[in-house]
């Protein structure tokens, strides 16, 4: 007896979960009738609630929903008709079918009164269990079907809401993913940009070291003594450094020709600014051209100080430039009032460098005129942008 009990319990509990029950309210002041009704309805397997007065029944109706009310007509205090009118008057209970239980008055007047009070059916006492069960089971089925369809509607509604929620979440997640992808791409782009910058910097440094090496070897080849080498080398590196500083301040964009000239000539014209006259319109130079011209100006100035117009007290230098329509710069260096000039026996490093910077670096031309009254250097070169375009065209044609 004890062993199967848990199985049966678990069965009934699982049944309680799967099959919802309807509540049946039995209202009768007579305990025997209430018991008889109870016994008749027990096999329906629904929940049976007994109230012994109209007041108790109304109280029960406040808290629960019922499939059907079995109502005794004749009760002390509130009778069945009064109770039925209360049930019909309340919105929450209006729909509950009422079946009257009555032992008396099987006449038509009484029946009419019962139906007009809201009865949907009548059962006569003594109660026939079969008839009662049949009638009540109809209302129970109806109630359960309604409850079922209501539950289904609710479930459908919940599923729909769930569906909306999931779709909204998916959309949010997709947006977040897209944002994070965009962020990732931006980061990768920034990193790639940084790598390019570092590689470019490395390249510049290596190139500059190569230039310094070349400068050392070339200066050494034309220096008669270590002292002479050191002085020339250090000054040339200093001149390179000055143009670099200028470009650095301009963030390696363009710089003005007159700035490059002032920066390169500054160490030589500190004492008397009137000895070197600069005159020309604004000309923007790219870094490559600026570095090349810086070296040219430096070589011209050192030569003037050593052999030319700046080697005595009265000599003067005039540097003038102009810009032609075809983006070509014409630049003249003219020395005057210096010692008499005689052409050098052979081109030294300085004049070779001047020629090479103009032709090789600036794609321009240069002429050195050793006029006895003063050195004259006539230079011209295209501005890098126009020359760059021309080179690009030919480069693509190859």
């Amino acid at each position, binding site marked *: 007896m004890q062993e199967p009990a848990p199985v049966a319990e678990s069965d009934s509990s699982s049944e309680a979960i799967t099959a919802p029950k309807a509540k049946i309210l039995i209202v009768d002041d007579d305990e025997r009738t209430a018991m008889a009704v109870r016994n008749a309805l027990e096999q329906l397997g629904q929940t049976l609630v007994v109230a012994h007065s109209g007041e108790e029944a109304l109280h029960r109706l406040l808290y629960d929903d019922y499939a059907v009310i079995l109502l005794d007509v004749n009760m002390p205090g509130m009778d069945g008709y009064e109770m039925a009118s209360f049930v019909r008057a309340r919105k929450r209970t209006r729909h509950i079918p009422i079946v009257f239980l009555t032992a008396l008055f099987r006449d038509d007047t009484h029946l009419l009164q019962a139906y007009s009070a809201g009865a949907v059916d009548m059962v006569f006492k003594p109660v026939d269990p079969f008839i009662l069960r049949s009638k009540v089971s109809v209302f129970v089925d109806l109630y359960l079907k309604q409850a079922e369809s209501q539950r289904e509607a609710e479930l459908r509604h919940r599923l729909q809401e769930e569906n909306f929620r999931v779709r909204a979440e998916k959309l949010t997640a997709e947006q977040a993913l897209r944002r994070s992808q965009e962020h990732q791409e931006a980061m990768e782009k920034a990193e790639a940009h940084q790598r390019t910058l570092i*590689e470019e910097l*490395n*390249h*510049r440094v*290596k*190139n500059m*070291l*190569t*230039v*310094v*090496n*070349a*400068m050392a*070897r*070339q200066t050494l*080849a034309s220096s008669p003594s270590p002292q002479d080498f050191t002085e020339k080398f250090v000054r040339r590196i200093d001149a390179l450094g000055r143009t670099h500083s200028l470009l650095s301040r301009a963030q390696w964009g363009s710089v003005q020709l007159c700035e490059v000239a002032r920066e390169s000539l500054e160490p030589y014209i500190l004492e008397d600014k009137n000895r070197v006259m600069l005159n020309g319109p604004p000309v923007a130079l790219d870094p*490559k051209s600026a570095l*090349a011209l810086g*070296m040219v100006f430096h070589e011209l100035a050192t030569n003037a100080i050593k052999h030319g117009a700046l080697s005595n007290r009265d000599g003067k230098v005039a540097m003038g430039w102009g810009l032609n329509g075809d983006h070509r710069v014409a630049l003249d260096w003219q020395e005057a009032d210096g010692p008499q000039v005689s052409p050098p026996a052979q081109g030294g490093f300085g004049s*070779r*460098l001047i020629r*090479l*910077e103009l032709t*090789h*670096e600036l*794609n321009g031309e240069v002429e050195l005129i050793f006029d006895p009254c003063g050195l004259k250097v006539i230079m011209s070169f295209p501005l890098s942008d126009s020359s*760059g375009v021309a*080179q*690009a065209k*030919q*480069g693509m044609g*190859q």
Partner: protein
Amino acid sequence: MISGTASILVVEDEALIAMDLQMVLEDAGYHVIGPANSPEAAMALLDGPLPDVALLDVNLGRFDVFGVANELAARKTKLIFLTGHTAQRLPEAHRHRPLIGKPYLPHLLLQIVQQVLSQREPADEAAA
């Protein structure tokens, strides 16, 4: 061939470096063709007698030297590349050729020039 009369085409856009390469090579007895400062200038020099070796700076301002390199390779000229880039990768067709990093040491540069000159056949023919 290995004697000082070999001719070397120099392509380098930086004036001072070009001047230095020329001096280093000429002091070693080589005949220098150029130096050319751009792909265009280098191509113009190919109309004359072909060099025994070409010493090519990879980056020429806005351009690279590979157009010239391909042209020279097609004419069976031996090539040596020069670069300031630390992670420079040569195109597939030239990856087997010597690459000298800047700044260069003159004696090492001359050593590589000599090695390349002493190779009997162009490297790509040997590979094919």
